[in-house]
């Protein structure tokens, strides 16, 4: 990859890292769709800011966008508190409206300026390295890399400073309130961070794919660990890794880089959905299968143990009889017996089963439980 390409990947990785930090808390606090809302509505702030100052690179735009992001949160909360609509419907009412106003403003009044809806919605990370940060003649690299770097650092500082408080608010909001940690204020700060990150990220990856970067990696990480810190680290890792992988994929197809990053994150999510060590579908299926065999062997051992040394032992320990009393199909029966013999729980001779000492011990344990 060329230097230019590395810069594109670096911007993508930085965006992903910045998004994963607040995203972790959104996922855990069941506010994921709020990121969808905020990433859409910040557009209105950007448009208003753009009309106010006439430039797309003014810091005022970030301030305006953050304000509209918080306005979104406030409006959703207001609707919810009016108790006329539920929270999810409130989100679904607020953001399309603000976003529509923004789109109409753009198409009516900014048609010729280089602020078009497609760019905002979809982003074009490939162009990121063209806008350079130059300080007294020195080329310091892409401007967006510095901006996202600053946002990521700010986000990391916020999370590090308030880690304990955020953790408490996430897992026990009631206790946080009771202990005087003011979860409402902290929540507002978190939403402000989400807004700032969304604004910073939107011109690189577009507003919809910010959602992929904010929610995808933490959701995948949630399936891999039980620890908040580890989850956050994994989320950052998955997000950052999606940048080079997505970039290479996009280059192969000559297609959208941001889209390919989102697709990579999708692959990561589906992989952990399927293959996560304890919670993946495969692990769950294997556990079920193991439990089925274990249970069958327990039944068999208990049955033999109950009749061990009694007059009926001979009839009760015959394979055909066992098949009948336990209601097992012949194939399943022979598999269970095979496994039990292999484990040294019992021995078979001409159709009769005898528990070994180990098998008796096993059966005793089963029956005690």
């Amino acid at each position: 990859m060329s230097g230019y390409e590395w810069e594109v990947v670096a911007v993508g990785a930085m965006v992903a890292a910045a998004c994963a930090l607040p995203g972790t808390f959104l996922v855990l606090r069941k506010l994921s769709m709020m990121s969808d809302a905020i990433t859409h509505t910040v557009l209105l702030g950007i448009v208003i800011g753009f009309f106010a100052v006439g430039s797309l690179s003014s810091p005022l735009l970030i301030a305006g966008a953050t304000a509209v992001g918080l306005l979104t949160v406030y409006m959703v909360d207001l609707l919810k508190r009016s108790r006329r609509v539920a929270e999810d419907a409130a989100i679904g009412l607020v953001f399309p409206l603000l976003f529509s106003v923004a789109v109409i403003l753009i198409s009516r009044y900014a048609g010729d300026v280089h602020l078009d809806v497609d760019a905002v919605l979809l982003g074009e990370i490939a162009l990121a390295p063209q806008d350079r940060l130059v300080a007294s003649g020195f080329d310091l690299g892409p401007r967006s890399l510095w901006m996202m770097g600053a946002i990521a650092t700010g986000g990391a500082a916020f999370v590090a400073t308030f880690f304990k408080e955020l953790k408490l608010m996430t897992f026990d909001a009631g206790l946080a309130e009771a202990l005087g940690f003011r979860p409402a204020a902290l929540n507002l700060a978190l939403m402000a961070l989400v807004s700032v990150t969304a604004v910073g990220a939107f011109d690189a990856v577009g507003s919809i794919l910010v959602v992929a970067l904010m929610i995808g990696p933490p959701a995948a990480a949630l399936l891999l660990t039980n620890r908040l810190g580890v989850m956050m680290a994994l989320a950052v890792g998955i997000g950052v890794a999606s940048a080079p992988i997505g970039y290479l994929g996009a280059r192969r197809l000559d297609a959208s880089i941001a889209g390919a990053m989102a697709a990579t994150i999708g692959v990561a999510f589906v992989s952990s959905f399927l293959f996560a060590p304890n919670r993946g579908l495969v692990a769950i299926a294997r556990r079920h299968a193991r439990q089925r065999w274990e249970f069958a062997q327990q039944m068999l051992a208990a049955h033999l143990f109950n009749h061990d040394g009694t007059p009926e032992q001979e009839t009760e320990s015959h394979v055909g009889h066992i098949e009948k009393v336990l209601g097992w199909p012949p194939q399943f029966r022979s598999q269970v017996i095979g496994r039990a013999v292999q484990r040294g729980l019992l021995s078979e001779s001409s159709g009769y089963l005898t528990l070994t000492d180990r098998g008796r011990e096993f059966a005793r344990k089963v029956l005690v439980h």
Partner: protein
Amino acid sequence: MEALLSWVDDYTLRTVALGSAMLGLVSGVLGTFALLRRQSLLGDALSHAALPGIALAFLFTRSKSILVLVMGAAVAAWLGALLIDSVVRNTRVKTDAAMAVVLSVFFGVGLVLLTYIQRLPDAGKSGLDTFLFGQAAALLERDLYLMAALGGGALLVVALLWKEFKLLAFDPGFASSLGLPIRGLERVLTTALVIAIVIGLQAVGVVLMSALVVAPAAAARQWTNRLSAMVVISGGFGAVSGASGALISSSVPRLPTGPMIVIVASGIVILSLLFAPRRGLVIGALRKRAGRKRLRSEVVLVDLYLLSLQHEVRHPHTTESIAGMRYQSGDVVASLDTLTARGLVARSGAGWVLTETGERLAKELLMLEQDASEAQLAVALAGRAPR
């Protein structure tokens, strides 16, 4: 005005208005169930998830026929719904995160495919990207037939499974205890929602189609407590938003359809939230104010009664001495006016006296027997007079 009158004759406008009304109607009806089942954002997730289906349908068939693209969209959206359901059922990832992941990842994949398609030699740029924001002006008459057929099918399903869906919306636990196949019914309902969404994509676009699922239903909810009425009102609101949004957008240059429809629909929501007869915020505020006023004036009534009891000879009491009964009694003059209007007190010289009904109400409010003797009153009220 002329533009408004001439639309009936204008072929394009008629097509656009009819088409948008139709999709508004269908999404309004299906949105009702989504809203009641707390799945309002499912529409958002599924409309985004439809994008790769549109692109894949084009890649496989190289056809821009709406039927083909809509089918592709429906399959992708349906798979998205299945994935959300499966993730929520099998893992600790909650609905919101599952929806956000499916929404954004499917959209990302769709974007990869769309940008890939745009660089194919025979694709041409036009057509597919209108699915982002929709272009009602591009609706053709044959698209209407397709929308009518698919949307009509979805509405028919709702009509046939009305009882079941009603139960599903209000008490799925009871439905399941009756032996109804809950999961199967949920799938059918989701399929109908998917159809409502995909027929709107061409006109409204994937980004804003979700609003047409949420807004009409949320507005309709304010006007009624009956499901049947809500479905009809929601469908009506959807149709009105669709048609008027599309018409406004067609008659003003550079006004995209999807956003305009959303603005009309949101306007209806705001009006409904404010002015609906029983649940409206305005009527609620008025009722609350009237209640407060009544309560405040009844406090004054009781005070006047207690004051009269403290004097052997019943005589009028001045506004000042009534106001002096407690530390805070609000606007006593206004309260006395209210009480006069209700016929509970009457002016007498420089002061106020209770009327007969006023005294009865005061006793009622103090939970005293109406025919209590002076001695009984003294016992009952010992220590009750406010300082």
